[in-house]
């Protein structure tokens, strides 16, 4: 058994890393949360978007030498376009003209996005090959006593929190945000107030995809060699757990859920090993669904 001070140091380091990771997880989950909260669509292809965002950052860095932090806005623009395309190609068929989104519609979009996820990840496997790649990016680190904290991690964590805050402001303080929230609460009433449901749902989906792909770009700085066509298979379930933890439709909930999961995974690893830490993080979902189906916030 290692002596106590080593364990304390490990826990403090795990906590800090967990918080940094949790902020980026929260940003990724925010993308899922937006589609889930606005259009009642649980996007199973969410993990594939994270993967595409990460590859976007990788290729921009490889061919144009972009800093991974600078690739995030470009990724977000691509995500916006992809989200609008996705809405009109897939969701519009199912959601068009609906007064309320029923369980049946939810299942149709769930299955449709599941098919997409299977197709996209395997298409990426052929296009990008299955090798793990990464972006060499070192922004230096700060030292506090014995702790060495990578600056890149702090940058992406701060940027993630800023984006989450901006989304919160957008949803609560602007006309568009009010329209989006009105749509998610009551479609017929929103229409009576002169809101175009198609436009609102499409913009919401585009916004969600933009945020997700930016999150994928940020993730590349935390995992130096973690880009792989199948990485989505890990980040999608993590995002589901985060959204359920925070409550679908609550943007701050994503941040709370993300931090919880980041800390559980990074501190849990020290005592339980990687496998069990992830298993605990995944299974957190079950008691939350049983005891607080609205999310842990309230």
């Amino acid at each position, binding site marked *: 058994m290692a002596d106590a001070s080593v364990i304390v140091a490990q826990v403090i380091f795990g906590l800090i890393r967990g918080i940094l990771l949790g902020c980026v997880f929260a940003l990724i989950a925010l993308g899922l949360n937006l589609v889930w909260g606005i259009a009642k669509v*649980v996007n*199973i292809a969410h993990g594939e978007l994270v993967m595409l965002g990460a590859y976007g950052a990788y290729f921009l860095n490889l061919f144009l030498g972009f800093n991974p932090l600078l690739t995030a806005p470009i990724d977000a623009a691509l995500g916006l376009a992809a989200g609008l395309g996705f809405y009109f190609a*897939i969701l519009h*068929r*199912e959601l068009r003209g609906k007064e309320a989104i029923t*369980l049946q519609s*939810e*299942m*149709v*979009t*769930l*299955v*449709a*996005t*599941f*098919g*997409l*996820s*299977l*197709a*996209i*990840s*395997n*298409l990426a*496997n*052929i296009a990008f090959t299955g090798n793990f790649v990464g972006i060499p990016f070192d922004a230096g680190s700060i030292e506090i006593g014995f702790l060495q904290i990578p600056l890149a991690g702090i940058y992406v964590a701060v940027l993630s929190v800023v984006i989450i805050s901006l989304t919160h402001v957008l949803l609560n303080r602007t006309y568009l945000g009010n329209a989006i929230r009105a749509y998610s609460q009551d479609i017929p009433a929103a229409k009576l107030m002169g809101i175009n449901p198609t436009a609102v749902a499409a913009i919401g989906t585009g916004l969600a995809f933009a945020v997700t792909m930016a999150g994928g770009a940020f993730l590349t700085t935390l995992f130096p060699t973690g880009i792989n066509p199948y990485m989505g*298979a890990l980040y999608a*379930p993590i995002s*589901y*757990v985060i959204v*359920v933890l925070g409550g679908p439709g609550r943007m701050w909930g994503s941040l709370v859920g993300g931090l919880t999961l980041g800390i559980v995974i990074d501190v849990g690893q020290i005592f339980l*090993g990687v*496998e*069990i830490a*992830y*298993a*605990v993080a*995944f*299974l957190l*979902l*079950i008691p939350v*669904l*049983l005891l607080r*189906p609205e999310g842990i916030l309230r």
Partner: protein
Amino acid sequence: MNFGRLLRSAPTLWGLAGFLVVLAVWGPWIPTFVLTLLINLLLFASLAYSMNFIAGLTGYVSFGHVVFMGTGAYAWGYVVGTFGWHPLAGIVAGAAVGLVLALGIGSVALRFRGVYFAIATLVTALAARNIILVIPALGDGQGIILNLGFEPLTWFYTIWVILGIQVGLTYWVTHGRIGYGLRAIKSDEDAAKALGVDAARLKLFVFAFSGLFAGAAGALNVWTLSGVFPEPAFDLLFSLQMLAMVIIGGMGTLLGPLLGAVAVYLPHNYFLTVAVGAEFIVIGILVTFFALVVPQGIVGALRRYVPTLRGIIE
């Protein structure tokens, strides 16, 4: 007994029975290469019928069905490797473990509806895989290596029996009181409960069958692979393919899972030699297409657009 009337009363069931009998009689003369393909096709069909019990009959989409396959596989590997049981007895053990686990998971997860059930089953499967990886008795994540030899004919008849039981059970469950209850749950669970359908019990009943057969099929799958390894046993792609087969074939139908199995197995087998993973592009696009355009699946679409088939296939 008027044979003609019996035949007319359930043409799909008799058609499937005829198909199985032909396979059984032909069995010993099938060339080995074709036999291995058929074993895999029947395995896929068996997985599809297993998923059909829960996703097809109640509309509860499970993304984590591979958890039953994986635990069934590990149960098989453990009793055969450690206690020296006969592999066939191991299949029964795999089925029993699948059943018990389904009762356990089902009694919690079946309380969640729609997407919550899908997500709860998905994370359960991921967590179960991670837990199995660190259990020393189950090979510490290295797997259990068993070299039992190549016995295609035994495998063939084993999966044949499993599939036969599943087809019979699907018919029995859909044609009777239970079937009415399940259809009521699928279209509106609250209304069904209000009318006195014991939804929780019925759902658990079909989920238990689903787990039992997935466990048995998972055990047989690793028997053909001569060993239990965590990655292939808990490959999430199995869950996804099971779901794809049921969606393509037709949710809750008797013939659908078999058609879906063929539709998924053909690209699977074709692309194996062309490009690894390409089959999932085809399957994924098919699933998206069916979900949005033909939600009833092949069988439902045939019944809808070809009136003469309406009384024949189900």
